[in-house]
């Protein structure tokens, strides 16, 4: 076991910003990230082996991310890339493993910036190869410059769909259609609240114009019903939906496509904050759980700070500011930044954060999550992709008396696979709520257990002191 003043978990915008600010104030920071290269999803870089390697940035945010990473390294932050933080013990001891070895770091302060992943929404055919998430599609195109298909259908909700469609068109793919679940009716009501954020609004309009120019139908108030194909996706059926994203019978439409990109928003990665013992609460606007934090970004566990999309999805601009604020808090807690120096900087960061959150709240209202999307699955639909448990099997357990996600897990193996419930947990909570007639907050969450990600026995057998 070794020790550190500060361990930051996650090298995306939030984690990088936290590491930079803390290091600038003289804090010795260890930054841990599972990927071989820092950046997270938003700043995901081209592989170093691509020509120009680290110097080639076809996308604006890749260049921005590169600058931030270089700065963090120049400040002397110890970067552990390709290393997974698989557990948190005694509140602030972080267990980290590479392919071959593991180490435990007793930290004075921990900043969790684990990010988010696409909200898993089961529907018939969602396990077919060629059906992929919006985040996965973005990574494939942004980092590896590979198209997921030639005729691609994009379904889901939120601004990320526009970004994905933009990449598809840039790469020469045909976008069959973009199905946005939210109705986007009455947007004029938000005009005065969006005025201070015209740069974001204009970016959205540029994407919409590009889609219109390419003749891509943008269908608002539409959801996916099912993906079809024998061994991979060859088509899909969509339908109109109500404001709760529940499909309207009789409005079905069948489309041909060789890839289907699905993105009904993102959910926070909460495994580490749960393992650390932090309190969480349900955020209705986000349709998910988020850790409880004070104004310094500190969780209910002293010395554990949580920032970015892993603390309630709010995008990269908010993530950067939250990371900065947490970096200040860490420096303050460790005595590196005191009195007015701290309060002045922290208050300025909080002010900027308040401004950015104004935009996020409008986005959350426009693209408000509709739980009706969980009615897409039928009894034969796979709920747990790892253990191949169907919705029907989970319902059977509930009809036999299970009332909590952990009971359904024990009876059916749902959530026991390698993804550790990340892909079935959110949907199962809604299945439990629907069947028991109680609010989704009463369904419970899977008990978190280390390792938060699979770790090889070889790594566990070899602990570095």
């Amino acid at each position, binding site marked *: 076991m070794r020790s550190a003043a500060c361990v930051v978990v996650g090298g995306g915008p939030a984690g990088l910003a936290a590491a930079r600010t803390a290091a600038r104030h003289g804090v010795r920071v260890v930054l841990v990230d599972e990927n071989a290269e820092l950046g997270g999803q938003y700043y995901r870089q081209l592989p170093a*082996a*691509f*020509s120009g390697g680290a110097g080639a940035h076809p996308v604006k945010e890749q260049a921005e991310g590169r600058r931030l990473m270089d700065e963090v390294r120049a400040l002397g932050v110890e970067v552990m890339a390709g290393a997974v933080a698989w557990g948190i013990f005694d509140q602030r001891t972080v267990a980290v493993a590479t392919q071959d070895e593991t180490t435990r770091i007793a930290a004075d302060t921990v900043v969790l910036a684990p990010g988010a992943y696409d909200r898993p929404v089961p529907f018939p055919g969602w396990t077919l190869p060629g059906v992929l998430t919006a985040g996965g599609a973005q*990574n494939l195109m942004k980092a590896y410059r*590979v*198209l997921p298909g030639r005729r691609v259908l994009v379904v889901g909700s939120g601004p990320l769909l526009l970004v994905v469609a933009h990449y598809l068109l840039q790469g020469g793919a045909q976008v069959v259609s973009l199905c946005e679940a939210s109705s986007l009716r009455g947007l004029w009501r938000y005009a005065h609240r969006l005025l201070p954020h015209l740069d974001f609004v204009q970016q959205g309009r540029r994407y919409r114009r590009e889609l219109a120019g390419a003749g891509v139908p943008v269908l608002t108030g539409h959801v996916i019903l099912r993906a079809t194909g024998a061994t991979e996706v060859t088509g899909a059926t969509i339908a109109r939906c109500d404001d709760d994203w529940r499909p309207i019978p009789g409005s079905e439409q069948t489309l041909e496509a060789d890839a289907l990109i699905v993105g009904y928003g993102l959910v926070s990665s909460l495994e580490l904050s749960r393992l650390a013992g932090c309190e969480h609460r349900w955020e209705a606007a986000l349709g998910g759980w988020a850790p409880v934090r004070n104004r310094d970004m500190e969780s209910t566990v002293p010395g554990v700070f949580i920032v970015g999309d892993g603390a309630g999805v709010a995008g990269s601009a908010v993530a950067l500011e939250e990371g900065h604020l947490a970096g200040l808090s860490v420096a303050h807690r460790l005595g590196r930044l005191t009195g007015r120096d701290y309060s002045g900087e922290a208050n300025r960061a909080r002010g900027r954060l308040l401004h950015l959150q104004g935009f996020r709240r409008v986005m959350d209202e426009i693209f408000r999550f509709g739980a009706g999307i969980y009615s897409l699955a039928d009894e034969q639909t796979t709920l747990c992709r*790892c253990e191949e448990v169907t919705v029907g099997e989970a319902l059977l357990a509930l009809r036999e008396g299970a009332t909590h996600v952990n009971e359904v897990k024990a009876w059916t193996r749902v959530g026991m696979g390698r993804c550790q419930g990340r*892909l079935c947990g959110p949907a199962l909570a809604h299945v439990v709520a629907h069947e028991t007639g109680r609010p989704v907050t009463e369904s419970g969450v899977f008990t978190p257990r280390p390792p938060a990600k699979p770790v090889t026995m070889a790594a566990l057998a070899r602990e570095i002191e």
Partner: protein
Amino acid sequence: MTQPDLRMSPPAERGRALTILLDGQPLGCHEGESIAAALLAAGRRSTRVTARAGEPRGYFCGMGVCHDCLVTADGLPNVRACMTPVKEGLRVEIQRGLGEWGVQS
């Protein structure tokens, strides 16, 4: 026979050309690509067949979360294709069921 190639940028901008073995058959790809990117670029969507229902599965989350794009690589089962880079001569097998430990060469 022409292979589909879904690479967006010209090969010149990529890493040097190399060859992996997919179920024993040579597959051209580029240094820096993940196994998943290399397979998808060639239009190969399935990376494994599930243990219970025998269903094909492939790249889904693309960020190491879902564990659906598992392959057997150089005899090591349950390798995430989206998180693992290709290298010259890498033996990739479409994983059947839970996978088996291969003989290390």
